[in-house]
């Protein structure tokens, strides 16, 4: 019914999608799987009419289509449900379903009773009790998705695309969603289901399409394929020597995390990081890796467990204490959390160690600049001047400034969340070399990364998290794409 062949989409030098190919039949649930960054989201946005492919063949019921807007895609019968549904919090549930096409009464004005009636009917068909007259604000994600599905049904959608709909749902809610999806399939709707959870994919879907690095790899009948084969196809690429970690002497334990738990976020997290060692926290987006890092650094609270730095217990919920104990934290979102974008490079570098340059209560500008210069030089930050605002630098150089900022505090342990996200390929390897150097100088590194090659290339040890728990601890020798991916996605064969 829907077929997309060889769709490509580039953003400047970045190839988001090289060969987007998928075919969805009427009355089937079709899974689309791939690693983070495999191009699934780009493909979905093309189907939704948000992106216009640079090339490729897009057909609906055999006819070529070129969507210029979301409205056109919708009119053609494609409905997309995103992981985070986009409802209007101030409008009622009924109005959210019918926005832009509210039923009209005799006066040619919108008829609210009629709108409510139709919404109630939809919910009855779906078998869910949601009050159409309440505002959308405060609804659970699961209910919001049901409303999106109700909207799709009322639009008479032929193709329903669900982008990781289960990521935020509980078990009961997933069951309800699947029941609705199966009912729709039996009525002839084609469903594209994107998920990282293989148990769900194999439970629900009729066929599976695998993508990797922006390319179509294969399509299988679910009945004729195994999880292992899918995983191999998802990760199967040459890791090679892209990210060499320099040999470093691994000595004493710097960080010990023991039985750390936070209700609903992560559970029973225990690991240690030694000086000179790079430990990678791998797993899918949303597995709770960043949350663990934030708890260790004292930004977020935790319920139980203990954190020790070089044997001494670390105070909970106190980043100052963490910094004093020798911890550094490079957050994922540089722009929001790591840098003050409007301040100069020098100011940003010295932000964490202001007190060192204070003379008689005032910051000594000369000392500050000297320290900043020293660190920028060592990290090869390419900035026109120390006085330029950080916002003028490239992503890679910004990352270096963040690193410089923490290195200036002379840390024992550096937590780096997604070190190369949004950084171009050239600078990526520089950042990698930098991290490797730091380990070589005896700093313990805890690196969170969603990029498998980065994890496998850099880490001495890999901790894999899945849904708030550590599901595998792999030494460098044992870590390969299959084992990491398996621990990150599959609930079977893990210490539950």
């Amino acid at each position: 019914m829907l077929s997309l062949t060889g769709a490509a989409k580039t953003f400047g030098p970045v190839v988001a999608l090289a060969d987007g190919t998928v075919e969805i039949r009427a009355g089937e649930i079709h899974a689309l799987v791939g690693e983070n960054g495999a191009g699934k989201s780009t493909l979905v946005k093309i189907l939704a009419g948000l992106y216009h492919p640079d090339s490729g063949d897009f057909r609906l019921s055999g006819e070529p289509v070129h969507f210029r807007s979301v409205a056109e895609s919708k009119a053609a019968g494609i409905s997309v449900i995103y992981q985070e549904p986009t409802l209007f919090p101030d409008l009622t549930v009924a109005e959210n379903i019918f926005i832009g096409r509210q039923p009209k009464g005799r006066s040619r004005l919108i008829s609210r009773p009629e709108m409510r009636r139709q919404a109630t009917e939809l919910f009855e068909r779906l078998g869910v009790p949601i009050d159409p007259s309440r505002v959308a604000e405060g609804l659970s994600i699961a209910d919001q998705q049901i409303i999106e599905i109700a909207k799709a049904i009322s639009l008479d959608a032929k193709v329903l695309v669900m982008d990781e709909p289960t990521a935020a749902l509980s078990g009961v809610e997933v069951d309800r969603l699947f029941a609705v999806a199966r009912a729709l399939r039996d009525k002839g709707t084609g469903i594209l289901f994107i998920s990282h959870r293989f148990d769900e994919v194999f439970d629900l879907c009729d066929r599976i399409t695998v993508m990797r690095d922006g390319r179509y790899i294969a399509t299988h009948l679910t009945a004729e394929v195994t999880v292992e084969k899918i995983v191999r196809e998802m990760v199967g690429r040459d890791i090679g020597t892209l990210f060499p970690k320099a040999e470093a002497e691994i000595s004493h334990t710097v960080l010990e995390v023991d039985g750390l738990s936070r209700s609903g976020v992560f559970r029973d997290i225990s690991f240690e990081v030694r000086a000179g060692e790079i430990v990678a926290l791998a797993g899918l987006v949303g597995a709770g890796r960043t949350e663990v890092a934030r708890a260790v650094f004292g930004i977020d609270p935790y319920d139980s467990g203990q954190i020790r730095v070089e044997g001494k217990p670390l105070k909970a919920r106190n980043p100052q204490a963490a910094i004093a104990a020798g911890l550094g934290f490079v957050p994922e979102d540089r722009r929001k959390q790591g840098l003050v974008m409007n301040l100069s490079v020098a100011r940003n570098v010295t932000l964490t160690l202001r007190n060192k340059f204070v003379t008689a209560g005032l910051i000594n500008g000369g000392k500050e600049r000297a320290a900043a210069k020293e660190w920028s030089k060592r990290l090869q930050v390419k900035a026109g001047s120390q006085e330029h605002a950080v916002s003028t630098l490239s992503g890679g150089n910004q990352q270096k400034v963040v690193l410089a900022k923490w290195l200036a505090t002379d840390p024992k342990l550096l937590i780096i969340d997604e070190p190369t996200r949004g950084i171009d390929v050239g600078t990526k390897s520089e950042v990698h070399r930098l991290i490797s150097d730091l380990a070589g100088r005896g700093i313990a590194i805890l690196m969170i990364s969603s990029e498998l090659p980065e994890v496998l290339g850099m880490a001495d040890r890999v901790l894999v998290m899945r849904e708030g728990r550590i599901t595998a601890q792999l030494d460098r020798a044992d870590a390969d794409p299959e084992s990491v991916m398996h621990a990150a996605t599959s609930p079977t064969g893990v210490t539950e």
Partner: protein
Amino acid sequence: MSSTVKHEEKPTTAGRTGGGSGGFGSLLRLRELPVLIALALLVLITFLNNPLFLSPQGIKDLLLNATIIVILAAGQTLLIITRNIDLSVGSMLGLVAFGTGSIFAAMPDLPILAVLLLGMAFGAVLGMVNGFLVTVAKVPALVITLGTLYVFRGFNNAWAGGKQYFAGDRPEAFGALSVDTVLGFPIITLLAIAVVAAVAVYMAGTRPGRDLYAIGSDPEAAKVLGIKVSKRVFLAFLANGALAGLAGVLYASRFNSVGATTGTGMELDVVAAAVVGGVAIFGGSGTVAGAALGALLLTTITSSLTALRVDKFWQQAIVGILILTAIVIDRLASLRTARKLRMSEARNV
């Protein structure tokens, strides 16, 4: 008409309680209610102290005082609902009011209707300038209209200089618009009520009108849904300008003199009226009826404080307290309903 709107509006504005709750709950749900109660109390207290306050002339004065602000507040509501704002309304009103004076000075025989339409067209053009800058240059409306506030005022200064037009320069029939009454309502007040009713029907009962709420509720989601955000916002600015133009013409009818400073500072009264009337400053909820009530309350407060012989300085402070109270009530109501929603959801699981 406006009563239908109010009731129909319940679910979207403060109908956050979801399930049916008792009398108190449904009262609180009506976001305009506190304003109505405050207005009634205010009028009652003042009346008890000074019975002249509700004489036919007293009522007429109250309505006349509110008329201009009500029209401006109706236009402003269109914008605030979409998470925009227009701070240049006072300057637009001033330009159009002075323009009205100039037109009558040049062509005393021009039909009043033509002048009304000309004034609205002039205002619409000024509104389009704002709308264009906001939607094309993508600069926040707060900044753009703060700029045009001064630009429009500058034009007014340059055009008017020290010149003023007085009521005597205008046809008698034009001035009569704010003197003659129908069923006790001055004619310009009836015009304002018609404006509020029309805007209310548009916002509650038409698809483009509902789009405005969607845009203010979540602009990104609106875009994803294929709502023409820029077009709607632009048209809202245009409509707001036209209404400011209408208010400008009526201002020239109501007040004796128009000149370079006419309408200065009015934008704050207008925004205050909308906020007091329950229009959420971050968009997405509120009604034009509420904004009109807010305007009536604010102007009535000034009159009744004068009638009660309260010091002028305290009058402003009291208006300020009223605005803060409106915001606190709104915040409390939404916190309360959020808590309630959590509880009802917990039961479902």
